[in-house]
């Protein structure tokens, strides 16, 4: 049976970053995902630390913040580690579909509910949404498209909004993927652009749901802006996420070109651990269970939605390696009184504690498994929802975990 250099469990941004880092360094990598991973759900822009206000330099802001949060995953990488990993991420997306920042600082971009959220790296299709001025903005939705409520967005952004339909194309009831696919067709986007131009009343920026094509979004953007005569930006919406799929597809393409193997659609049902080392994992595709072995392993299975953490009635468990989960003392301490309280729910800081090289650690901080590293949102001691740090944690720790694994 083949022995891999590295097995990455998880196909979200952390797992893919780890796999790519290792594969580009020449390692033979196997990526195992229970499903397609979280990028298909909510990968849009790259948050690093939204707590740092726009205008404040991110390097200083993050470094200061690490000083007051010594248990945070960022404390394992430092700002230098984050910055290096972000550069590597940006290199994966060369021009024209690039990820860019507004200088070394956060921008505020509109969400699918019409609020503004801080984020760092934006795909060029979202750039014009940063720092928008309500009077200059028109939000365009599609009649009958359930995943994007243009009216809600424009109401909250206090800008003008319209819903359009293109009878010739029968847009009613189409899914996000169907719309993205149509956008990849030049005649469609030109007709759409003309329809939007007809609705425009001097607005300089046009917000659309994030469906500006899967194959060539930069060309879609350029054509739309040319026909409409205004800048165009994508607004994230309900899953599935088209911008997230672009990221996933790009990683997969690069990984396969580098000789990595993908297994997708079946869970890891067991592991073999001997003397503090993982010797193999088992993947179950009924009626068969297959063992895969590697020198090194990276666990990047995400949180509750991806199956990386599992909530039983009274405690939270990690189902692959059965690692100890850092968590509140009891179920009564999981949540705050009100769901929409500004303070984070303690359950969201639950996760796997690690040593400096991201190996899972037990009490006292000693590593429990010497050839397993943990990356991404499954790590303990972050509040990525409130901090707006989800993608930054995934990229920085995925990158670092792969480097540590290769060093070992």
């Amino acid at each position, binding site marked *: *049976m*083949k022995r891999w250099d590295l097995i990455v469990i998880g196909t979200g941004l952390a797992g893919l970053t780890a796999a790519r880092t290792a594969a580009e360094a020449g390692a033979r990598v*196997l990526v195992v995902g*229970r*499903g*397609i*991973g*979280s990028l*298909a*759900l909510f990968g849009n822009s790259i948050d690093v630390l939204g707590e740092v206000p726009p205008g404040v330099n991110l390097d200083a802001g993050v470094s200061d913040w690490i000083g007051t949060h010594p248990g945070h995953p960022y404390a394992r990488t430092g700002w230098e580690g984050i910055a290096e990993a972000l550069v590597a991420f940006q290199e994966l997306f060369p021009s024209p579909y690039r990820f860019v920042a507004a200088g070394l600082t956060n921008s505020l971009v509109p969400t699918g509910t019409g609020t503004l959220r801080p984020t760092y790296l934006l795909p060029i299709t979202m750039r014009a949404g940063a720092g928008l001025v309500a009077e200059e903005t028109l939000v365009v939705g599609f009649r009958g498209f359930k995943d994007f409520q243009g009216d809600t967005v424009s109401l909250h952004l206090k800008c003008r909004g319209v819903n359009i339909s293109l009878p010739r194309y*029968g847009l*009613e*009831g*189409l*899914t*996000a*993927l*169907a719309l993205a*696919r149509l956008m990849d067709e030049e005649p469609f986007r030109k007709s759409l652009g003309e329809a939007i131009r007809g609705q425009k009343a001097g607005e300089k920026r046009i917000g659309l749901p994030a469906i500006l094509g899967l*194959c060539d979004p930069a060309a879609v953007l350029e054509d739309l802006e040319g026909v409409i005569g205004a800048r165009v930006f994508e607004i994230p919406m*309900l*899953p*599935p*996420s088209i911008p997230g*799929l672009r990221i996933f*597809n790009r990683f*997969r*393409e690069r990984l*396969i*070109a580098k*000789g990595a*193997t*993908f*297994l*997708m*659609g*079946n*869970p890891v*049902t067991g592991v073999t651990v001997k003397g503090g080392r993982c010797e193999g994992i088992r*993947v*179950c*595709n*009924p*009626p*068969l*269970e*297959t*063992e895969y072995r590697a020198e090194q392993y990276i666990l990047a299975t995400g949180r509750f*939605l*991806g*199956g990386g953490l599992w909530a039983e009635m009274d405690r939270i468990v990690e189902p692959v390696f059965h690692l100890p989960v850092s968590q509140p003392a009891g179920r009564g301490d999981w949540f705050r009184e009100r769901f929409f309280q500004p303070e984070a729910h303690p359950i969201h800081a639950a996760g796997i504690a690690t040593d400096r090289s991201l190996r899972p650690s037990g009490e006292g901080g000693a590593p429990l498994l010497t050839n397993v590293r943990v990356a991404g949102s499954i790590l303990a001691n972050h509040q990525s929802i409130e901090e707006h740090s989800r993608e930054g944690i995934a990229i920085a720790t995925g990158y670092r975990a792969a480097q540590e694994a290769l060093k070992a």
Partner: protein
Amino acid sequence: MTPATEPRNPARTLPDLCVRCATCMAVCPVARVTPRFPGPKQAGPGAQRFRSAAEASVDDWIELCTACRLCDTACPAGVPISELNLLAKAKFLDERGRGLRDWLLVRSDLFGELAARYSRFVNPLLQNRTVRWLLDRTLAIDRRRMLPPYEYPTFRKWFADRQAPESAGRPRIAYFHGCFTNTNEVDVGKAAVALLEAAGFTVTVPPQRCCGIPRLGVGDLRGAREMGQRNLSLLLPTVREGTDLVFSSTSCGMMLRHEYGPLLNLPGAQELAVRLFDICEFLVRRQEENDAAVRFKPLPRKVAYFTPCHLRALNIGLPALELLRLVPGVEVAMLDTECCGLGGLYGFRKEKYPISEEIGKGLKKEVGRLDPDTIVTDCEGCRMQLRALTGREVLHPVQLLRDALAEG
């Protein structure tokens, strides 16, 4: 590979495993091209909550699922979506009845041998415009669909009549060729035999029948079970004497390996599954165990590789790609488009042909962009569709690998 120790839990048809995350909507080829199919989330677990064995089916769109199984590979929650669809489709078609067209199409194995014997007369008829118009009008087999020509001698006849090479001391390997190789693409079988012999094996071809997947396609569970039982009684003696079995058709393989057991519950299915391998998967493994297993000579060729959906569902990575990369001079690019759109017999049906063609459009464009010398893919359905879409040479990977075998 070992038998899975525990059956999939909880109940396989439990729709409440679905958390409505919509990841599956990101990969469904049908929902992407037609609003008539609501997509896997709604068609599978969504509608399942409203289905009752005692009541008549109401969702006629269930027939539009192609059973590609991509939704299963994307789902993070382990919902057996395609199986829910299949069971609903079976119930719907049991109620509505299946008609002469389906009766004929799923029994192509019965008249395949005869058609091959008289292929000199049959093939011109299949190409004849009037005959195709008649098939279109009387049986609703779309006249735009190219009907694959038959070949004689069949693979089985060629194999029985040939001068077998010296076999003393060589391990045995059994080959499941499938119907299409036997009567329509004999060279795939010849190439498989040549490769296995070059890898040091004596090839046997046990008696076998259609795997039964066409019957699953029309929701005929009883018919599929019958085919499965027949094949198991024909194939089990081979595996019981300790001989491994390889298949070259990923759809036959998926049926034999993963549907006989978990879905159809046939006794002996697991015994067969543990000794059953995709031919490229088997050769890759052989290659790793023994450096000098098969040697390839240079073959300068620009190849585009397409991943069949059922290969994704087998979840064994891309073994054909790994082998092709061993051939000096072969330059492989990925046709990274999901689903060719044929869906087996789906694409022959008049009412579904437009969907099939629309799904294939992206693939056609991608082939045009890469402009390869040869297209390579493991599934006969994908090969048929790719030939129809592009008019180019489309091979099974084993054919290209056979052409690259070093002498001696």
